[in-house]
């Protein structure tokens, strides 16, 4: 043994004798991870969170979370001698006087955008491939929680610098709190330490932004990853892959090198974006004052859908018995988002109730083989796209020379009409893709070579698929619809009959599919 090996051995021995780690490490260093580009989306979210921790800690060394009024005397001339909050002044200080400060602010903000984008993309991957099914429902719920908290965390961070744009965002948040029936004014006065804007809000959300929520994130992400580790990763279907195995690469060394390298790539890309693309130039907006506003105010994209909903809400308020209920705020600001996120969190349970499928699933679905789920996803995405479009209606209007009026009315109707249309189209698309799968399995792919038959006719030669390809296209399961008692002559209670009817109807819709080729079909072809 070289002396270096000796040192390593004795350190390992020291740790193992006190923790028994060797047995656990041995098992886990060879742990198998399946490989697919779409499995990197969750990783991007994790890495951008780490970047946020690092860059955020740097910013907090100079950021002064206070709404105390100061006279600005720093290096940025246009604002010299202007009254502003200490929070805003210190953000200017970070941007103009601290070397690398502006770069870090940009990295923090770009990482926040990337974090949210990666979470959303990851969630879509999990949804469309059915990775949320048993036994992974907990992780789905944790993911929805992370998405929700991420939106809140991003909003709070965006609010910290106390510039004109972010103050306007806080004003809107205050109006939403205040709109809550019965308790609204009280909650708003508690949150702001009195009337808006007061001097308590920024220090308070600072604690939430840098301590409370990051702590919760850390805890949730840890549980999320432990579950992935323990339950093992799902895999895409293919030859040799079953519900009972995982096919992939061992953690050590290849997966570790790839994942570690990928962290640096994500960090590098974030640094590059921050170097060349300016984001949130707060010095151009000026300090916050409630009497002013900058035109064309736009929130970060992950808030844009809420903004779009608020903008398209019909102007309805109820005044009765000396009280006011602002439907124009409650519906887009709380009720619709509440329904969306609750529905999203409960979806795994809804689906398994409808299909009656209570088994474990480790092989992912190809989206076309789950037409209803895929169509539902397309429907939700369409909904969000309409809200985003309306959230950016001023930008859309100037780009496409439309009036805001036109876009608003388009959105108000579109939000109701377009999602169901998207559902129908997507479902049809899935079924025709299934048909196309069936065709290539049975008839092969067109080879482009023509063959002249003895009769003089020309036919195109079809190359049959390999056994591997055929297997990938046909391995999925096609299940019968649920058979539930619908008559009450067996003593089934009336309420239950209705529920069963609903369930079997949905379940019949769920199994609508193009029958996949089976081995008999294949034999028949070979016979020809």
């Amino acid at each position: 043994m070289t002396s270096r090996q000796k040192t390593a051995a004795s350190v390992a021995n020291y740790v193992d004798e006190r923790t028994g780690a060797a047995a656990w490490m041995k098992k886990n260093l060879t742990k198998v991870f399946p490989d697919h580009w779409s499995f990197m989306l969750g990783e991007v979210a994790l890495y951008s969170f780490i970047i946020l921790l690092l860059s955020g800690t740097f910013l907090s060394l100079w950021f002064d979370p206070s709404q105390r009024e100061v006279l600005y005397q720093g290096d940025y001339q246009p604002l010299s001698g202007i009254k502003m909050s200490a929070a805003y002044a210190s953000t200017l200080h970070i941007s103009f006087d601290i070397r690398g400060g502006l770069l870090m602010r940009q990295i923090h903000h770009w990482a926040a955008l990337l974090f949210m984008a990666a979470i959303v993309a990851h969630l879509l991957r999990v949804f469309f491939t059915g990775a949320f099914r048993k036994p992974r429902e907990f992780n789905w719920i944790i993911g929805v929680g992370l998405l929700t908290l991420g939106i809140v965390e991003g909003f709070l961070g965006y609010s910290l610098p106390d510039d004109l744009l972010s103050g306007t965002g806080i004003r809107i948040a205050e109006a939403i709190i205040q709109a809550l029936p019965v308790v609204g004014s009280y909650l708003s006065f508690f949150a702001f330490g009195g009337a808006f804007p007061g001097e308590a809000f920024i220090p308070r959300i600072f604690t939430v932004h840098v301590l409370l929520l990051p702590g919760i994130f850390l805890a949730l992400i840890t549980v999320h990853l432990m579950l992935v580790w323990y339950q093992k990763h799902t895999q895409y279907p293919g030859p040799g892959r079953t519900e009972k195995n995982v096919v992939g690469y061992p953690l050590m060394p290849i997966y570790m090198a790839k994942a570690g390298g990928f962290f640096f790539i994500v960090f590098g890309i974030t640094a590059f974006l921050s170097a060349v693309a300016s984001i949130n130039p707060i010095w151009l907006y000026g300090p916050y004052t409630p009497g002013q506003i900058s035109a064309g105010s736009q929130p970060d994209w992950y808030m844009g859908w809420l903004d779009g909903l608020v903008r398209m809400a019909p102007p309805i308020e109820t005044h009765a018995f000396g009280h006011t209920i602002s439907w124009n705020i409650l519906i887009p600001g709380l009720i619709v988002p509440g329904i969306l996120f609750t529905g999203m969190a409960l979806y795994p349970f809804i689906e398994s109730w409808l299909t009656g499928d209570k088994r474990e699933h480790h092989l992912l679905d190809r989206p076309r083989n789950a037409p209803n789920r895929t169509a539902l996803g397309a429907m939700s995405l369409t909904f969000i796209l309409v809200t985003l479009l309306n959230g950016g209606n001023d930008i859309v209007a100037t780009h496409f020379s439309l009036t805001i009026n036109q876009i608003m009315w388009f959105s108000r109707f579109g939000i109701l009409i377009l999602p169901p249309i998207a559902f129908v189209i997507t479902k049809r698309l899935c079924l025709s893709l299934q048909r196309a799968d069936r065709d290539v399995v049975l008839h092969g792919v067109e080879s482009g070579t023509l063959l002249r038959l003895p009769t003089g006719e020309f036919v195109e030669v079809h190359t049959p698929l390999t056994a591997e390809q055929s297997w990938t296209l046909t391995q999925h399961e096609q299940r019968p619809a649920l058979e539930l008692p619908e008559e009450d002559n067996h003593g089934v209670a009336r309420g239950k009959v209705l529920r069963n009817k609903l369930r079997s109807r949905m379940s019949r819709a769920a199994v609508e599919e193009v029958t996949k080729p089976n081995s008999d079909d294949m034999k028949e072809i070979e016979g020809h």
Partner: protein
Amino acid sequence: MSHEVANLSDPGLPAHVHRAADSDPKAEKKAERQVATLFGLSAVGTILFIVSYIYIPLDLFIFVPILGSTNAHQLSLGLGLAISLLCIGLGAVHWAKTLMPDNEVIAQRHEFRSPESERKEFVAAAKEGANAAGLGRRSLIKRSLGLSLGLVGLSPLLLLRDLGPLPGKELEKTSWKTGTRLVTDPGNRPIKPSDLEVGAVAQVLPQLNPDEERTLNNIGKDAVLLIRLRVEDFQLSPERLAWTHEGIIAFSKICSHMGCAVALYEQQTKHLLCPCHQSTFDVPRAAKVIFGPAARPLPQLAITVDTEGYLVAQKPFTEPVGPSFWERSS
């Protein structure tokens, strides 16, 4: 629909495809060199970072194609960091892809459900534990524990009570009183009707006593917009017309939707527009909402002139300004 049909058969994992570097020593050497070059480039990036940090002044601006005028310090720091990080990452991934063993491995999964016997033992142990504590028998303890646990949660909630004062009538009040002068913002000068031409807009605030300081809280409720029209342009009730003065009409600048500053006035259409969600208010008709999500007109402030000819408030606002709240009665 057919089911329970015989599936095609699974041909099993395809044979492993070897890479060039697995067998060809030349390809292997080449990959090795590429990885090392990337790691080396990363070191160059770090040096660029250090040099920029020390030598490029913070306020040097340079012209870069596409980007335009750019802060040189921030740009080169960022590029240095990006190069140093990216190249480590690319090097590691390239190393893994070309040189590390890439044989697929198959691991078996196991059902998560515990074996039946273990589940039984667990239930027995849990029951035994509960029995030993006697929770089932000692209902007095159970109930009092429930009570105390329920109550103990109240303390932290109560502790939050001092986060802020109760709203009281605070949301309904502004600083405007009968006879309060309108002063310009910025500038703090009282104004006369003659200061405003037809078509002009001005942001005003209530004049404060010399001993009072204006806070953002005040501005958030007191900000008012003055707009001067020709008197014949108004389509107001006689009462509201009496609230104007020589064609000058005053509205709260705080949006009745969610409280943004209603900042855009379109002279031609005589519309006030809130940039937040584009609620549009028609000035001649007492700021009636003609578009957008706002449900109420902007509150109008009754104005007149005092003995010295300066614009003053006739009386306080007759309704709360800003976004709605539960206790609001109209």
